């Protein structure tokens, strides 16, 4: 007996949800960046699960692309965070006021 596809997708949905909650409730920008990475990972898991269900390679190729995107986002994000810290000494989002328009 193998694991049914919806088992993988359920796990991926749970991880995505945890990541999204983390982005919304945590104040530290580094933790927020990590939570976004987790969300991307959750999406990757869903892509692979669907890929095996449909017996196609599209899912795997997409996951490779997403990894490039994740690396790029983290590289630019960390450069910004380190610069901001050197000038202001704060990595808490409250001082960056994320959701205030």
């Amino acid at each position, binding site marked *: 007996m193998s694991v049914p596809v919806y088992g*993988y997708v359920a796990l991926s949905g749970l991880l995505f*949800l945890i990541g999204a909650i983390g982005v*919304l409730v945590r104040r530290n920008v580094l933790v927020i960046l990590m939570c976004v*990475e987790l969300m991307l990972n959750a999406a990757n898991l869903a892509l*692979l699960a669907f890929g095996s269900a449909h017996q196609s390679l599209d899912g*795997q190729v997409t996951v490779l*692309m997403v990894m490039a995107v994740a690396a790029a986002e*983290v590289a630019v994000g960390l*450069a910004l*965070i380190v610069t901001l810290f050197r000038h202001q000494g704060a990595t808490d989002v409250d001082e960056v006021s994320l959701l205030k328009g």
Partner: protein
Amino acid sequence: MSLTQAVFILLGGMAVLGALGMVTLRNLFHSALAMILALFSIAGIYVLLEAEFLAVVQVLVYVGAIAMLILFGIMLTRDIVGRASAVRNRQWPLALAVSAGLLAVLAVALVRAAWPLATYAPAQGGVADLGLALMGPYALPFEVASVLLLVAMVGALIIAREARE
């Protein structure tokens, strides 16, 4: 319960545990370590899905590069044992609403979906097919992704150079 199912439950449990730890731990460094646990477990699940190549890439890129970068970020911005970061902010009612909505969407999608194949069947092909796909039908996204990586490299350098000045 078969061995595959047992391994899936174990790895899935570790991934969820890591994710929860990442979101709830106050110490940034511990948070990052919990994230590494989650990413490692996900790599294991990729092996279960017979995407061995991606499992290797996952360990190399996420655990090897991205997690290390984040650890460097933590060390550069505060001392490791330094003051803890708050776990809750003022946005938690909003977070509750958004998460509930998201949970509803995902749950409905999960429960009511017409699953294409109820059980897992091995995907065709290995690394060779992946390579052919990247050079054939996915040549465009592949090339744009290389521009993306160039942008990230140039961008990180520009921003870091500003920091030095």
